Protein backbone atom coordinates (compact mmCIF):
# COMPACT_ATOMS: atom_id res chain seq x y z
CA UNK A 1 0.00 0.00 0.00
CA UNK A 2 2.68 2.44 1.10
CA UNK A 3 4.84 1.22 -1.65
CA UNK A 4 2.09 1.86 -4.15
CA UNK A 5 1.72 5.35 -2.81
CA UNK A 6 5.39 5.93 -3.39
CA UNK A 7 5.08 4.64 -6.90
CA UNK A 8 2.04 6.78 -7.54
CA UNK A 9 3.72 9.94 -6.28
CA UNK A 10 6.89 9.39 -8.27
CA UNK A 11 4.94 8.18 -11.27
CA UNK A 12 2.74 11.25 -11.21
CA UNK A 13 5.77 13.47 -10.87
CA UNK A 14 7.56 11.95 -13.84
CA UNK A 15 4.39 11.94 -15.89
CA UNK A 16 3.93 15.62 -15.10
CA UNK A 17 7.51 16.35 -16.09
CA UNK A 18 7.21 14.45 -19.34
CA UNK A 19 3.81 15.74 -20.34
CA UNK A 20 4.16 19.34 -19.25
CA UNK A 21 4.50 20.72 -22.79
CA UNK A 22 1.30 18.93 -23.73
CA UNK A 23 -0.60 19.99 -20.61
CA UNK A 24 0.34 23.60 -20.95
CA UNK A 25 0.05 25.17 -24.36
CA UNK A 26 1.32 28.43 -22.88
CA UNK A 27 4.65 29.33 -24.45
CA UNK A 28 5.49 31.59 -21.54
CA UNK A 29 5.19 28.71 -19.07
CA UNK A 30 7.39 26.57 -21.26
CA UNK A 31 9.93 29.32 -21.71
CA UNK A 32 10.25 29.89 -17.98
CA UNK A 33 10.38 26.14 -17.47
CA UNK A 34 13.22 25.96 -19.98
CA UNK A 35 15.02 28.71 -18.13
CA UNK A 36 14.54 26.71 -14.94
CA UNK A 37 16.02 23.64 -16.60
CA UNK A 38 19.01 25.65 -17.79
CA UNK A 39 19.46 26.98 -14.27
CA UNK A 40 19.28 23.41 -12.94
CA UNK A 41 22.32 22.53 -15.05
CA UNK A 42 24.34 25.38 -13.53
CA UNK A 43 23.10 24.73 -9.99
CA UNK A 44 23.86 21.01 -10.25
CA UNK A 45 27.44 21.96 -11.01
CA UNK A 46 27.46 24.25 -7.99
CA UNK A 47 26.00 21.57 -5.75
CA UNK A 48 28.80 19.33 -6.89
CA UNK A 49 31.45 22.01 -6.36
CA UNK A 50 30.21 23.30 -3.04
CA UNK A 51 28.35 20.43 -1.47
CA UNK A 52 30.71 17.67 -2.47
CA UNK A 53 34.08 19.31 -2.98
CA UNK A 54 33.55 22.08 -0.42
CA UNK A 55 34.64 24.94 -2.68
CA UNK A 56 32.64 28.14 -2.89
CA UNK A 57 32.06 30.01 -6.13
CA UNK A 58 30.38 33.38 -6.14
CA UNK A 59 31.36 34.00 -9.73
CA UNK A 60 29.72 31.05 -11.41
CA UNK A 61 27.91 33.34 -13.78
CA UNK A 62 31.32 34.15 -15.26
CA UNK A 63 31.48 30.59 -16.61
CA UNK A 64 27.92 30.83 -17.90
CA UNK A 65 28.91 34.00 -19.73
CA UNK A 66 32.03 32.43 -21.20
CA UNK A 67 29.94 29.53 -22.47
CA UNK A 68 27.22 31.75 -23.87
CA UNK A 69 29.53 34.14 -25.71
CA UNK A 70 31.82 31.37 -26.95
CA UNK A 71 29.04 29.42 -28.59
CA UNK A 72 27.41 32.57 -29.91
CA UNK A 73 30.64 33.84 -31.46
CA UNK A 74 31.68 30.48 -32.86
CA UNK A 75 28.34 30.09 -34.61
CA UNK A 76 27.84 33.70 -35.76
CA UNK A 77 31.35 34.96 -36.50
CA UNK A 78 32.95 31.70 -37.58
CA UNK A 79 29.77 30.24 -39.04
CA UNK A 80 30.39 26.88 -37.40
CA UNK A 81 27.50 24.54 -36.64
CA UNK A 82 25.87 24.79 -33.23
CA UNK A 83 27.18 21.49 -31.77
CA UNK A 84 30.73 22.68 -32.34
CA UNK A 85 29.86 25.96 -30.66
CA UNK A 86 28.51 24.14 -27.65
CA UNK A 87 31.51 21.84 -27.37
CA UNK A 88 33.82 24.86 -27.64
CA UNK A 89 31.77 26.59 -24.95
CA UNK A 90 32.05 23.66 -22.56
CA UNK A 91 35.76 23.26 -23.26
CA UNK A 92 36.63 26.91 -22.79
CA UNK A 93 34.62 27.27 -19.59
CA UNK A 94 36.16 24.12 -18.18
CA UNK A 95 39.66 25.33 -19.01
CA UNK A 96 39.00 28.67 -17.32
CA UNK A 97 37.56 26.66 -14.43
CA UNK A 98 40.91 24.88 -14.15
CA UNK A 99 42.65 28.23 -13.86
CA UNK A 100 40.23 29.54 -11.24
CA UNK A 101 40.83 26.34 -9.26
CA UNK A 102 44.50 27.17 -8.79
CA UNK A 103 43.98 29.79 -6.05
CA UNK A 104 41.79 27.28 -4.22
CA UNK A 105 44.87 25.23 -3.33
CA UNK A 106 45.96 27.92 -0.97
CA UNK A 107 42.79 29.75 -0.04
CA UNK A 108 39.93 28.78 2.18
CA UNK A 109 36.27 29.64 2.21
CA UNK A 110 35.82 33.38 2.19
CA UNK A 111 39.09 34.22 0.50
CA UNK A 112 38.27 31.84 -2.28
CA UNK A 113 34.80 33.28 -2.62
CA UNK A 114 36.41 36.70 -3.08
CA UNK A 115 38.61 35.36 -5.87
CA UNK A 116 35.53 33.99 -7.57
CA UNK A 117 33.66 37.29 -7.12
CA UNK A 118 36.60 39.07 -8.71
CA UNK A 119 36.65 36.52 -11.50
CA UNK A 120 32.94 37.04 -12.21
CA UNK A 121 33.39 40.81 -12.21
CA UNK A 122 36.39 40.64 -14.52
CA UNK A 123 34.46 38.54 -17.02
CA UNK A 124 31.51 40.94 -16.83
CA UNK A 125 33.73 43.97 -17.35
CA UNK A 126 35.50 42.31 -20.26
CA UNK A 127 32.17 41.60 -21.92
CA UNK A 128 31.11 45.21 -21.49
CA UNK A 129 34.40 46.64 -22.69
CA UNK A 130 35.48 44.31 -25.49
CA UNK A 131 32.86 45.83 -27.74
CA UNK A 132 34.44 44.64 -30.97
CA UNK A 133 34.11 41.00 -29.93
CA UNK A 134 31.12 40.86 -27.61
CA UNK A 135 29.03 43.75 -28.85
CA UNK A 136 29.59 45.45 -25.48
CA UNK A 137 26.55 46.53 -23.55
CA UNK A 138 24.46 46.61 -26.71
CA UNK A 139 24.84 42.88 -27.00
CA UNK A 140 24.94 40.21 -29.68
CA UNK A 141 21.86 39.45 -31.75
CA UNK A 142 20.69 36.93 -34.32
CA UNK A 143 22.33 33.97 -32.63
CA UNK A 144 21.07 30.97 -34.61
CA UNK A 145 18.52 28.75 -32.88
CA UNK A 146 18.95 24.99 -32.83
CA UNK A 147 17.34 23.33 -35.77
CA UNK A 148 15.69 20.01 -36.41
CA UNK A 149 15.44 19.18 -40.09
CA UNK A 150 15.68 22.83 -41.08
CA UNK A 151 13.01 24.18 -38.75
CA UNK A 152 14.03 25.96 -35.56
CA UNK A 153 13.42 24.28 -32.22
CA UNK A 154 10.18 25.14 -30.51
CA UNK A 155 10.08 25.66 -26.76
CA UNK A 156 8.73 22.13 -26.45
CA UNK A 157 11.70 20.66 -28.28
CA UNK A 158 14.11 22.65 -26.16
CA UNK A 159 12.27 21.38 -23.12
CA UNK A 160 12.83 17.76 -24.02
CA UNK A 161 16.42 18.40 -25.08
CA UNK A 162 17.17 20.00 -21.73
CA UNK A 163 15.40 17.18 -19.88
CA UNK A 164 17.64 14.66 -21.60
CA UNK A 165 20.72 16.72 -20.77
CA UNK A 166 19.70 17.01 -17.13
CA UNK A 167 19.14 13.29 -16.98
CA UNK A 168 22.65 12.76 -18.38
CA UNK A 169 24.11 15.24 -15.91
CA UNK A 170 22.23 13.49 -13.12
CA UNK A 171 23.60 10.09 -14.11
CA UNK A 172 27.11 11.51 -14.38
CA UNK A 173 26.83 13.11 -10.94
CA UNK A 174 25.42 9.97 -9.39
CA UNK A 175 28.21 7.85 -10.76
CA UNK A 176 30.79 10.40 -9.66
CA UNK A 177 29.32 10.61 -6.19
CA UNK A 178 29.67 6.91 -5.58
CA UNK A 179 32.95 6.53 -7.40
CA UNK A 180 36.43 6.71 -6.01
CA UNK A 181 36.66 10.36 -6.94
CA UNK A 182 33.40 11.16 -5.15
CA UNK A 183 34.61 9.62 -1.94
CA UNK A 184 37.83 11.55 -2.31
CA UNK A 185 35.81 14.69 -2.58
CA UNK A 186 33.97 14.02 0.62
CA UNK A 187 37.33 13.51 2.23
CA UNK A 188 38.66 16.81 0.90
CA UNK A 189 35.51 18.55 2.00
CA UNK A 190 35.71 17.17 5.51
CA UNK A 191 39.33 17.76 6.17
CA UNK A 192 41.95 18.95 3.73
CA UNK A 193 44.97 17.99 5.73
CA UNK A 194 43.69 14.62 6.81
CA UNK A 195 42.74 13.81 3.25
CA UNK A 196 46.16 14.83 2.06
CA UNK A 197 47.65 12.59 4.70
CA UNK A 198 45.68 9.68 3.29
CA UNK A 199 47.48 10.24 0.00
CA UNK A 200 44.49 11.86 -1.63
CA UNK A 201 45.52 14.51 -4.03
CA UNK A 202 43.24 17.31 -2.95
CA UNK A 203 44.54 19.57 -5.67
CA UNK A 204 43.45 17.17 -8.33
CA UNK A 205 39.97 16.74 -6.91
CA UNK A 206 39.52 20.48 -6.48
CA UNK A 207 40.61 21.12 -10.05
CA UNK A 208 38.28 18.43 -11.25
CA UNK A 209 35.32 19.84 -9.34
CA UNK A 210 35.98 23.35 -10.61
CA UNK A 211 36.39 22.23 -14.18
CA UNK A 212 33.24 20.13 -14.06
CA UNK A 213 31.06 22.82 -12.57
CA UNK A 214 32.51 25.40 -14.94
CA UNK A 215 31.88 23.10 -17.89
CA UNK A 216 28.25 22.63 -16.87
CA UNK A 217 27.84 26.38 -16.43
CA UNK A 218 29.33 26.83 -19.90
CA UNK A 219 26.94 24.28 -21.36
CA UNK A 220 24.00 26.07 -19.79
CA UNK A 221 25.23 29.41 -21.10
CA UNK A 222 25.65 28.10 -24.64
CA UNK A 223 22.16 26.57 -24.63
CA UNK A 224 20.72 29.83 -23.29
CA UNK A 225 22.34 31.79 -26.09
CA UNK A 226 20.78 29.60 -28.77
CA UNK A 227 17.40 29.35 -27.10
CA UNK A 228 17.00 33.08 -26.44
CA UNK A 229 18.74 34.21 -29.61
CA UNK A 230 20.55 37.22 -28.16
CA UNK A 231 23.05 38.07 -25.46
CA UNK A 232 23.58 41.20 -23.42
CA UNK A 233 25.89 41.54 -20.43
CA UNK A 234 23.12 42.22 -17.94
CA UNK A 235 22.28 38.69 -16.79
CA UNK A 236 25.93 38.16 -15.86
CA UNK A 237 26.31 40.32 -12.77
CA UNK A 238 27.39 39.46 -9.26
CA UNK A 239 23.78 39.25 -8.13
CA UNK A 240 23.13 36.55 -10.70
CA UNK A 241 26.02 34.52 -9.30
CA UNK A 242 24.61 35.04 -5.84
CA UNK A 243 21.28 33.83 -7.11
CA UNK A 244 22.82 30.59 -8.37
CA UNK A 245 24.41 29.96 -4.98
CA UNK A 246 21.07 30.74 -3.35
CA UNK A 247 19.45 28.13 -5.61
CA UNK A 248 22.03 25.57 -4.56
CA UNK A 249 21.58 26.30 -0.87
CA UNK A 250 17.80 26.45 -1.05
CA UNK A 251 17.74 23.18 -2.96
CA UNK A 252 20.20 21.54 -0.62
CA UNK A 253 23.92 21.14 -1.01
CA UNK A 254 24.16 17.59 0.14
CA UNK A 255 21.95 15.82 -2.38
CA UNK A 256 22.10 15.61 -6.14
CA UNK A 257 18.43 16.59 -6.15
CA UNK A 258 19.39 19.93 -4.59
CA UNK A 259 20.18 21.43 -7.95
CA UNK A 260 16.84 20.39 -9.39
CA UNK A 261 14.75 21.59 -6.46
CA UNK A 262 16.69 24.84 -6.08
CA UNK A 263 16.70 25.60 -9.80
CA UNK A 264 12.98 24.97 -10.15
CA UNK A 265 11.85 26.78 -7.04
CA UNK A 266 13.96 29.89 -7.38
CA UNK A 267 13.32 30.30 -11.10
CA UNK A 268 9.59 30.06 -10.62
CA UNK A 269 9.25 31.96 -7.38
CA UNK A 270 9.89 35.45 -8.79
CA UNK A 271 7.73 34.61 -11.82
CA UNK A 272 4.86 33.54 -9.58
CA UNK A 273 5.33 36.66 -7.51
CA UNK A 274 5.00 38.88 -10.57
CA UNK A 275 1.41 39.26 -9.57
CA UNK A 276 -1.06 41.23 -11.58
CA UNK A 277 -1.42 43.74 -8.79
CA UNK A 278 -0.76 47.36 -9.49
CA UNK A 279 2.35 48.49 -7.67
CA UNK A 280 3.50 44.95 -6.96
CA UNK A 281 6.28 45.31 -9.52
CA UNK A 282 8.11 47.15 -6.75
CA UNK A 283 7.49 44.48 -4.13
CA UNK A 284 7.95 41.09 -5.73
CA UNK A 285 11.73 40.95 -5.34
CA UNK A 286 11.33 41.97 -1.71
CA UNK A 287 8.92 39.12 -1.08
CA UNK A 288 11.23 36.80 -3.01
CA UNK A 289 14.23 37.69 -0.86
CA UNK A 290 12.21 37.27 2.35
CA UNK A 291 11.07 33.79 1.34
CA UNK A 292 14.59 32.73 0.39
CA UNK A 293 15.97 34.07 3.67
CA UNK A 294 13.31 32.23 5.65
CA UNK A 295 14.12 28.96 3.89
CA UNK A 296 17.84 29.38 4.47
CA UNK A 297 17.47 30.39 8.10
CA UNK A 298 14.96 27.72 9.05
CA UNK A 299 15.87 24.92 6.65
CA UNK A 300 19.61 25.25 6.17
CA UNK A 301 19.86 21.72 4.82
CA UNK A 302 17.72 22.84 1.93
CA UNK A 303 14.26 22.21 0.53
CA UNK A 304 15.39 19.09 -1.31
CA UNK A 305 16.39 17.30 1.88
CA UNK A 306 13.23 18.39 3.68
CA UNK A 307 11.09 17.36 0.75
CA UNK A 308 12.52 13.86 0.67
CA UNK A 309 12.35 13.58 4.44
CA UNK A 310 8.70 14.55 4.24
CA UNK A 311 8.02 12.09 1.43
CA UNK A 312 9.81 9.20 3.11
CA UNK A 313 7.87 9.90 6.28
CA UNK A 314 4.80 9.74 4.10
CA UNK A 315 5.42 6.11 3.22
CA UNK A 316 7.31 5.36 6.39
CA UNK A 317 9.99 3.35 4.82
CA UNK A 318 13.03 2.55 6.80
CA UNK A 319 15.81 4.78 5.61
CA UNK A 320 18.03 2.59 3.52
CA UNK A 321 21.72 2.64 2.99
CA UNK A 322 21.52 5.21 0.25
CA UNK A 323 19.71 7.77 2.37
CA UNK A 324 22.19 7.21 5.13
CA UNK A 325 25.02 7.97 2.80
CA UNK A 326 23.12 10.94 1.48
CA UNK A 327 22.66 12.52 4.82
CA UNK A 328 26.26 12.71 5.82
CA UNK A 329 26.39 15.14 8.65
CA UNK A 330 28.66 18.11 8.58
CA UNK A 331 30.98 17.22 11.37
CA UNK A 332 34.04 18.35 9.52
CA UNK A 333 33.15 22.00 9.53
Amino acid sequence: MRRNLKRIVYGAFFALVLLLPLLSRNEYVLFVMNKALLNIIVVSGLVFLTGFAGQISLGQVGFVAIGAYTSALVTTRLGMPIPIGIVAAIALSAIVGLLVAIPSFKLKAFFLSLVTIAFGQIIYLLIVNLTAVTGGSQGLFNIPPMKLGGTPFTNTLYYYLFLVLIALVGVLMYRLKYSYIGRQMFAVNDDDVAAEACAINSKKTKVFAFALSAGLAGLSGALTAHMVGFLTPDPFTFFDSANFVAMAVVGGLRQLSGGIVGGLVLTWLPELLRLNISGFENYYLLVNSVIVMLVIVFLPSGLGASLFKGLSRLWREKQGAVTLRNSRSKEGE
Partner: protein
Amino acid sequence: MVLSDLLQNIIGGVTVGATYGLIGLGVVFLWQSIERINFANISSAMLAAYLFYTFYTQLHLGFLVAFVVSIAIIAAYGLALRHLVLEPINRHGGDKLEFVVATLMLCTFWLSVVKVLYGGIAKPFPPVFGEATSFVQIGSISIPSVYFWIFFVVLVLVLVLYVLLQRTMIGKMFRATAQNKEMASLVGINVGMTTSLAFMLSTSIVGIAGILLAPIYFVSLDLGGGPIGVKGFAAAVMGGLIDPLGTILGGLSIGLIENFSTLFISSAYKDVISFVVLVVVLVWKPRGIFNWTTKGD
Protein backbone atom coordinates in the same frame (compact mmCIF):
# COMPACT_ATOMS: atom_id res chain seq x y z
CA MET B 1 50.99 65.61 -16.68
CA VAL B 2 51.83 68.28 -14.16
CA LEU B 3 52.44 67.77 -10.48
CA SER B 4 49.17 69.38 -9.47
CA ASP B 5 47.30 66.86 -11.61
CA LEU B 6 49.06 64.03 -9.83
CA LEU B 7 48.31 65.53 -6.44
CA GLN B 8 44.73 66.09 -7.43
CA ASN B 9 44.41 62.44 -8.38
CA ILE B 10 46.12 61.28 -5.22
CA ILE B 11 43.60 63.25 -3.19
CA GLY B 12 40.70 61.83 -5.19
CA GLY B 13 42.00 58.30 -4.89
CA VAL B 14 42.75 58.60 -1.21
CA THR B 15 39.29 59.96 -0.43
CA VAL B 16 37.41 57.28 -2.28
CA GLY B 17 39.90 54.72 -0.96
CA ALA B 18 39.33 55.82 2.63
CA THR B 19 35.65 55.13 2.15
CA TYR B 20 36.44 51.62 0.91
CA GLY B 21 38.54 51.21 4.03
CA LEU B 22 35.67 52.26 6.31
CA ILE B 23 33.35 49.80 4.65
CA GLY B 24 36.07 47.18 5.02
CA LEU B 25 36.25 47.83 8.76
CA GLY B 26 32.72 46.49 9.07
CA VAL B 27 33.90 43.26 7.47
CA VAL B 28 36.94 43.09 9.72
CA PHE B 29 35.09 43.42 13.01
CA LEU B 30 32.67 40.67 12.19
CA TRP B 31 35.36 38.39 10.88
CA GLN B 32 37.46 38.93 13.95
CA SER B 33 34.77 37.80 16.28
CA ILE B 34 32.75 35.16 14.42
CA GLU B 35 34.72 34.36 11.27
CA ARG B 36 31.69 35.10 9.17
CA ILE B 37 31.27 37.47 6.27
CA ASN B 38 28.17 39.59 6.17
CA PHE B 39 27.51 40.15 2.50
CA ALA B 40 24.87 42.68 3.49
CA ASN B 41 27.66 44.67 5.13
CA ILE B 42 27.22 47.53 2.70
CA SER B 43 23.46 47.69 3.34
CA SER B 44 24.20 49.34 6.68
CA ALA B 45 25.72 52.28 4.81
CA MET B 46 22.63 52.71 2.68
CA LEU B 47 20.25 52.29 5.62
CA ALA B 48 22.14 54.84 7.71
CA ALA B 49 22.19 57.34 4.84
CA TYR B 50 18.44 56.99 4.29
CA LEU B 51 17.70 57.11 8.03
CA PHE B 52 19.76 60.26 8.37
CA TYR B 53 18.06 61.73 5.33
CA THR B 54 14.66 60.96 6.88
CA PHE B 55 15.50 62.40 10.27
CA TYR B 56 17.41 65.42 9.05
CA THR B 57 15.77 66.47 5.80
CA GLN B 58 12.25 65.18 6.26
CA LEU B 59 11.73 65.41 10.04
CA HIS B 60 14.09 68.37 10.63
CA LEU B 61 15.65 66.85 13.74
CA GLY B 62 18.96 68.65 13.59
CA PHE B 63 22.34 67.20 12.72
CA LEU B 64 23.39 65.70 16.04
CA VAL B 65 20.04 64.12 16.90
CA ALA B 66 19.58 62.76 13.42
CA PHE B 67 23.10 61.34 13.42
CA VAL B 68 22.89 59.72 16.85
CA VAL B 69 19.44 58.27 16.28
CA SER B 70 20.42 56.86 12.89
CA ILE B 71 23.54 55.20 14.23
CA ALA B 72 21.65 53.87 17.26
CA ILE B 73 19.11 52.26 14.97
CA ILE B 74 21.90 50.81 12.85
CA ALA B 75 23.57 49.38 15.96
CA ALA B 76 20.28 47.82 17.01
CA TYR B 77 19.99 46.42 13.52
CA GLY B 78 23.39 44.80 14.02
CA LEU B 79 22.12 43.16 17.16
CA ALA B 80 19.01 41.98 15.34
CA LEU B 81 21.20 40.58 12.60
CA ARG B 82 22.87 38.38 15.17
CA HIS B 83 19.70 37.15 16.81
CA LEU B 84 17.45 36.89 13.77
CA VAL B 85 19.90 35.61 11.18
CA LEU B 86 23.12 34.21 12.62
CA GLU B 87 21.73 32.41 15.67
CA PRO B 88 18.74 30.76 13.95
CA ILE B 89 21.01 29.50 11.17
CA ASN B 90 23.40 28.03 13.71
CA ARG B 91 20.55 26.56 15.70
CA HIS B 92 19.11 24.84 12.64
CA GLY B 93 22.42 23.33 11.68
CA GLY B 94 23.49 25.86 9.08
CA ASP B 95 27.01 27.00 8.56
CA LYS B 96 29.18 29.64 6.93
CA LEU B 97 27.76 29.21 3.47
CA GLU B 98 24.17 29.51 4.68
CA PHE B 99 25.12 32.74 6.41
CA VAL B 100 26.73 33.98 3.20
CA VAL B 101 23.61 33.27 1.16
CA ALA B 102 21.23 34.60 3.80
CA THR B 103 23.14 37.88 3.93
CA LEU B 104 23.32 38.06 0.14
CA MET B 105 19.54 37.85 0.13
CA LEU B 106 19.45 40.41 2.93
CA CYS B 107 21.30 42.76 0.61
CA THR B 108 18.58 42.39 -2.06
CA PHE B 109 15.95 42.68 0.64
CA TRP B 110 17.19 46.04 1.89
CA LEU B 111 17.58 47.35 -1.65
CA SER B 112 13.96 46.42 -2.32
CA VAL B 113 12.76 47.92 0.95
CA VAL B 114 14.48 51.22 0.30
CA LYS B 115 13.28 51.17 -3.30
CA VAL B 116 9.70 50.70 -2.14
CA LEU B 117 9.86 53.33 0.59
CA TYR B 118 11.92 56.02 -1.12
CA GLY B 119 11.77 55.26 -4.82
CA GLY B 120 14.70 54.63 -7.09
CA ILE B 121 15.67 58.24 -7.68
CA ALA B 122 18.87 59.31 -5.95
CA LYS B 123 18.34 62.16 -3.52
CA PRO B 124 20.76 64.97 -2.87
CA PHE B 125 22.32 64.75 0.56
CA PRO B 126 21.70 67.79 2.79
CA PRO B 127 24.77 70.03 2.80
CA VAL B 128 25.71 69.23 6.41
CA PHE B 129 29.35 68.87 5.39
CA GLY B 130 29.36 72.00 3.30
CA GLU B 131 27.87 72.69 -0.13
CA ALA B 132 28.79 70.20 -2.81
CA THR B 133 30.34 72.98 -4.83
CA SER B 134 32.37 74.55 -2.07
CA PHE B 135 36.03 73.87 -2.66
CA VAL B 136 39.13 74.68 -0.70
CA GLN B 137 41.93 76.02 -2.82
CA ILE B 138 45.46 75.05 -1.85
CA GLY B 139 47.87 76.39 -4.43
CA SER B 140 46.74 74.96 -7.71
CA ILE B 141 44.85 72.15 -6.08
CA SER B 142 41.20 72.40 -5.27
CA ILE B 143 39.60 70.08 -2.75
CA PRO B 144 35.86 69.76 -2.02
CA SER B 145 35.22 70.68 1.60
CA VAL B 146 33.41 67.40 2.19
CA TYR B 147 36.73 65.60 1.61
CA PHE B 148 38.10 67.22 4.73
CA TRP B 149 35.17 65.87 6.67
CA ILE B 150 35.88 62.42 5.34
CA PHE B 151 39.55 62.64 6.28
CA PHE B 152 38.63 64.04 9.66
CA VAL B 153 36.02 61.42 10.49
CA VAL B 154 38.16 58.55 9.23
CA LEU B 155 41.00 59.83 11.38
CA VAL B 156 38.77 60.24 14.42
CA LEU B 157 37.16 56.85 13.86
CA VAL B 158 40.50 55.10 13.55
CA LEU B 159 41.71 56.88 16.66
CA VAL B 160 38.57 56.06 18.64
CA LEU B 161 38.71 52.45 17.52
CA TYR B 162 42.38 52.29 18.41
CA VAL B 163 41.72 53.59 21.91
CA LEU B 164 38.65 51.40 22.30
CA LEU B 165 40.42 48.24 21.23
CA GLN B 166 43.87 48.84 22.67
CA ARG B 167 43.21 50.79 25.82
CA THR B 168 39.89 49.72 27.28
CA MET B 169 39.11 46.47 29.04
CA ILE B 170 36.13 45.82 26.79
CA GLY B 171 38.33 46.34 23.75
CA LYS B 172 40.87 43.91 25.05
CA MET B 173 38.18 41.40 25.79
CA PHE B 174 36.94 41.88 22.25
CA ARG B 175 40.37 41.27 20.79
CA ALA B 176 40.94 38.26 23.02
CA THR B 177 37.69 36.73 21.78
CA ALA B 178 38.71 37.39 18.21
CA GLN B 179 42.02 35.60 18.68
CA ASN B 180 40.86 32.58 20.62
CA LYS B 181 37.21 32.18 21.43
CA GLU B 182 37.50 29.18 23.68
CA MET B 183 40.40 30.57 25.65
CA ALA B 184 38.54 33.85 25.99
CA SER B 185 35.59 32.11 27.59
CA LEU B 186 37.98 30.23 29.89
CA VAL B 187 39.38 33.47 31.28
CA GLY B 188 35.86 34.67 32.00
CA ILE B 189 35.04 36.75 28.94
CA ASN B 190 31.38 36.66 27.94
CA VAL B 191 31.82 35.65 24.33
CA GLY B 192 28.13 36.15 23.60
CA MET B 193 28.44 39.74 24.69
CA THR B 194 31.54 40.41 22.60
CA THR B 195 29.83 38.80 19.60
CA SER B 196 26.92 41.20 19.97
CA LEU B 197 29.41 44.00 20.30
CA ALA B 198 31.10 42.87 17.11
CA PHE B 199 27.82 42.98 15.22
CA MET B 200 26.94 46.40 16.54
CA LEU B 201 30.40 47.78 15.92
CA SER B 202 30.43 46.37 12.42
CA THR B 203 27.08 47.84 11.37
CA SER B 204 27.66 51.15 13.16
CA ILE B 205 31.01 51.83 11.50
CA VAL B 206 29.57 51.09 8.07
CA GLY B 207 26.58 53.22 9.04
CA ILE B 208 28.81 56.16 9.89
CA ALA B 209 30.63 55.56 6.64
CA GLY B 210 27.29 55.64 4.85
CA ILE B 211 26.34 59.05 6.23
CA LEU B 212 29.79 60.32 5.46
CA LEU B 213 29.70 58.97 1.92
CA ALA B 214 26.26 60.26 1.10
CA PRO B 215 27.52 63.65 -0.16
CA ILE B 216 29.62 61.75 -2.71
CA TYR B 217 27.34 58.80 -3.39
CA PHE B 218 24.11 60.74 -2.83
CA VAL B 219 21.27 59.17 -0.88
CA SER B 220 20.95 56.41 -3.40
CA LEU B 221 20.69 52.70 -3.92
CA ASP B 222 24.32 52.80 -5.07
CA LEU B 223 25.19 52.86 -1.37
CA GLY B 224 23.51 49.52 -0.85
CA GLY B 225 25.24 47.31 -3.35
CA GLY B 226 27.48 47.26 -6.32
CA PRO B 227 31.12 48.19 -6.62
CA ILE B 228 31.57 49.88 -3.24
CA GLY B 229 30.61 46.75 -1.35
CA VAL B 230 33.02 44.53 -3.24
CA LYS B 231 35.81 47.06 -2.86
CA GLY B 232 35.11 47.20 0.87
CA PHE B 233 35.71 43.45 0.97
CA ALA B 234 38.86 43.91 -1.05
CA ALA B 235 40.13 46.49 1.43
CA ALA B 236 39.43 44.08 4.27
CA VAL B 237 41.32 41.34 2.45
CA MET B 238 44.35 43.59 2.08
CA GLY B 239 44.32 43.89 5.85
CA GLY B 240 44.11 40.13 6.19
CA LEU B 241 40.53 40.52 7.46
CA ILE B 242 41.81 41.26 10.95
CA ASP B 243 43.96 44.37 10.90
CA PRO B 244 41.86 47.55 11.07
CA LEU B 245 44.73 49.85 10.15
CA GLY B 246 45.73 47.51 7.33
CA THR B 247 42.16 47.65 6.07
CA ILE B 248 42.22 51.43 5.85
CA LEU B 249 45.55 51.27 4.04
CA GLY B 250 44.14 48.55 1.79
CA GLY B 251 41.22 50.82 0.91
CA LEU B 252 43.55 53.71 0.19
CA SER B 253 45.68 51.62 -2.12
CA ILE B 254 42.63 50.38 -4.04
CA GLY B 255 41.46 53.96 -4.47
CA LEU B 256 44.87 54.99 -5.72
CA ILE B 257 45.20 52.01 -8.05
CA GLU B 258 41.85 52.91 -9.59
CA ASN B 259 42.80 56.50 -10.18
CA PHE B 260 46.24 55.79 -11.53
CA SER B 261 45.14 53.01 -13.82
CA THR B 262 42.59 55.41 -15.28
CA LEU B 263 45.23 58.07 -15.60
CA PHE B 264 47.94 55.96 -17.17
CA ILE B 265 46.24 52.96 -18.72
CA SER B 266 42.55 53.14 -19.55
CA SER B 267 39.40 54.34 -17.86
CA ALA B 268 37.46 51.43 -19.32
CA TYR B 269 39.69 48.84 -17.70
CA LYS B 270 40.31 50.46 -14.34
CA ASP B 271 37.97 48.07 -12.52
CA VAL B 272 39.43 45.08 -14.32
CA ILE B 273 42.84 46.19 -13.15
CA SER B 274 41.77 46.62 -9.54
CA PHE B 275 40.12 43.20 -9.49
CA VAL B 276 43.19 41.59 -11.02
CA VAL B 277 45.27 43.25 -8.31
CA LEU B 278 42.89 41.85 -5.72
CA VAL B 279 43.26 38.32 -7.07
CA VAL B 280 47.02 38.64 -7.24
CA VAL B 281 47.13 39.84 -3.63
CA LEU B 282 44.88 37.01 -2.53
CA VAL B 283 46.96 34.38 -4.24
CA TRP B 284 50.31 35.90 -3.44
CA LYS B 285 49.65 36.90 0.17
CA PRO B 286 46.43 35.36 1.36
CA ARG B 287 46.97 36.70 4.85
CA GLY B 288 46.84 40.24 3.55
CA ILE B 289 49.61 42.57 2.50
CA PHE B 290 48.79 45.12 5.18
CA ASN B 291 48.41 42.71 8.05
CA TRP B 292 50.76 43.21 10.95
CA THR B 293 48.72 41.52 13.61
CA THR B 294 50.45 38.17 13.61
CA LYS B 295 54.00 37.60 12.67
CA GLY B 296 55.32 34.13 12.18
CA ASP B 297 52.84 31.60 13.51
